[in-house]
């Protein structure tokens, strides 16, 4: 964390031009270079032309809807996405997270909060120097250097957040990991009241694992506590 961040480039897709300019100024002071696009189409175009570290995407866009932009964007890249949603609009938020957004912020947001979220996610994608970089449990294996996951040796496409959550659970099979901790590790922030983002990411993860043919390991919910990964039977037998 001490390695002072290089200037990262952020793509902001928001139709509020004035807000965009102000954010540009505001984030620039935090060595974040912001490129503003006022429509979804422009945003996707810019993504094809330049390299960005992160996308901030307003869901409430005129013309091409933010969710459509997210869907289109996810077909080509797994770049981290923070979406800006209407406060209280659970449907957009849940669909957004399901479509692969990494985190969300309700608009109007506190700009300091925005910086914190952006930083947390950028920090997470920076290559770390920790020793262990690969994990394996039953049919699931993860490789942190390449940020790749596979089930039965077939590649599994996970967003950064899903990858980190799965890694957390995989590190401690059979142990309950609190939502608080999952939020801190995968999203780099504290869990907020009424925050369902971890639950949504977990449900995405379950679906993806199931679709990839994993039936042994299951992610269980301990209501009010957190989540745990139950190792498959074959795995447990092996241990005994």
């Amino acid at each position, binding site marked *: 964390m001490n390695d002072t961040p290089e200037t990262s480039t952020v793509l902001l897709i928001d139709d*509020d031009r*004035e807000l965009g300019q102000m*954010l540009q100024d*505001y984030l620039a*002071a935090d060595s974040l270079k912001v490129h503003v696009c006022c429509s979804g189409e422009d945003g996707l175009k810019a993504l094809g032309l330049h390299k960005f570290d992160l996308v901030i995407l307003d869901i409430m866009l005129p013309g091409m809807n933010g969710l459509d932009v997210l869907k289109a964007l996810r077909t080509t890249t797994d770049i981290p996405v923070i979406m800006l949603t209407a406060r209280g609009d659970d449907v957009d938020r849940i669909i957004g997270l399901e479509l692969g957004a990494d985190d969300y912020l309700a*608009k*109007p947001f506190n*700009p300091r909060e925005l910086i914190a979220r952006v930083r947390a996610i950028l920090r997470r994608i920076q290559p770390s120097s920790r020793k262990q970089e690969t994990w394996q449990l039953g049919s699931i294996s993860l490789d942190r250097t390449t940020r790749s996951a596979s089930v039965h040796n077939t590649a599994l496409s996970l967003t950064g957040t899903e990858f980190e959550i799965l890694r957390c659970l995989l590190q401690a099979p059979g142990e309950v990991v609190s939502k608080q901790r999952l939020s801190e590790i995968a999203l780099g922030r504290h869990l907020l009241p*009424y925050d369902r983002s971890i639950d949504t990411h977990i449900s995405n993860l379950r679906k993806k694992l199931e679709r990839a043919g994993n039936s042994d390991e299951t992610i269980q919910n301990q*209501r009010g506590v957190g989540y745990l990964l139950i190792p498959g039977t074959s795995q447990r037998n092996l241990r005994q």
Partner: protein
Amino acid sequence: MKSLLIRIFLSFWLIIGLTIGTAAIGGYWYAEKVSNAYDNFELGDSILDASAALQSAGREGLRSWLNEFPGADGLQVLVLDARGQDLLGRPVPVTMRRMLDRRQRFMRPPDRLRRDPENLMRARPLSQLIGPDGQRYVIVVVPARNPLLARYGLSPRTLLLILALLVSAAVSILLARAMSRPVRELREATRSLAAGNFEKRVSSSVGRRRDELGSLARDFDTMADNLQRSAAQQLELSRNVSHELRSPLARLRVALELARREAGNLAEFDRIDVETERLDTLIAQILDYTRLDSIADQDKRPLSLNDVIADVIADVNYECNSVGIDNVSITSEFSSSINVLAHESSIKSAIENILRNAVKFTKPNSRVVVSLRREYPDKALVTVDDSGPGVPESDLDRVFEPFFRSADAANSRSGTGLGLAIAARAISLHGGTIAASNRADGGLRISMQLPC
């Protein structure tokens, strides 16, 4: 029938006409029948046989003659002794007995009695026989009694009366129902409109009528349309205003942070920050409130109320801890596990708003208790109890109104004033009811009843 006036007029006319008609026609028909029977009947020579039987074998002889007498269509031949009793013990019509009592002799009855069916036999000469012992017997011919009527002791006259009553009752019931059903339907529709349900329409039922009630029903629908439209417009307006307020608010917040950077941390900036936050919360709540309107039935799914409540308690506990309220504990008492068909986020926000309100007002170091039980087989009851100051009785109904503040609730800890309104609206959109009451041992209880 176009007019209610004509309808009522004709119906009454019909009832009265039918009643009179039934009585008149029935009476006439019966009199005609009896009179025909008399016309066709001739005692003739049989009277000689009777006399012979009486002379030879006395009373017993007359009795056996009577027993063998074939009788006649619609008529009955009675032989009465001196005490006025029939020899075969058959009942003697009251009128006949009275007449015999009144007059020792057989006389031609006065003309005015001729038309009374039971008096008709007096129009015929009656025969008198005198037995060997000087005993006097009278042969009378009376209209035969209908065995069915006889069993219930009814005279044809009573039957006519009952018949007339039945006919008029039947028609009256039809009329009453025809008038009261549409009125009742209209009344139900009006009530449901008054309760805030703008969906109810009556065109397809009462509105089909072509009378005044029909046009009243169509007017009702027009009124409901207008009310619904204006309510929707009002909601739409608050929704749009709130949405539009967000963009400047978002810019304001960024501008504030930029200013902070330029000018350093001023206490005023913190104040602006707090106020912006409040504005933001208020707008969010208005949007929550207006958004409740668009819940469709297909958005509802089966939910475990127990899980929903447990989730909300966990969230509110978490929120309490994060804002430093750590002397209030929230406990739950579930006496059954109940599933409801509901829109998850709105039912959650209902319980959450009530719980937050309870936490806000309860005394320090007290408990807020959420309980869930089955009240009726198809009703779930959720109550939230706090130990706060409660609400004056007169204001209990009004706490669910948007922005309502009780006058003497010196509440400095102000919320947006929309929390309970959101809860009430969400509950009523699920077909439930919500009520506030003061608890006997202090504090407020909010009870929600939900169909399950």
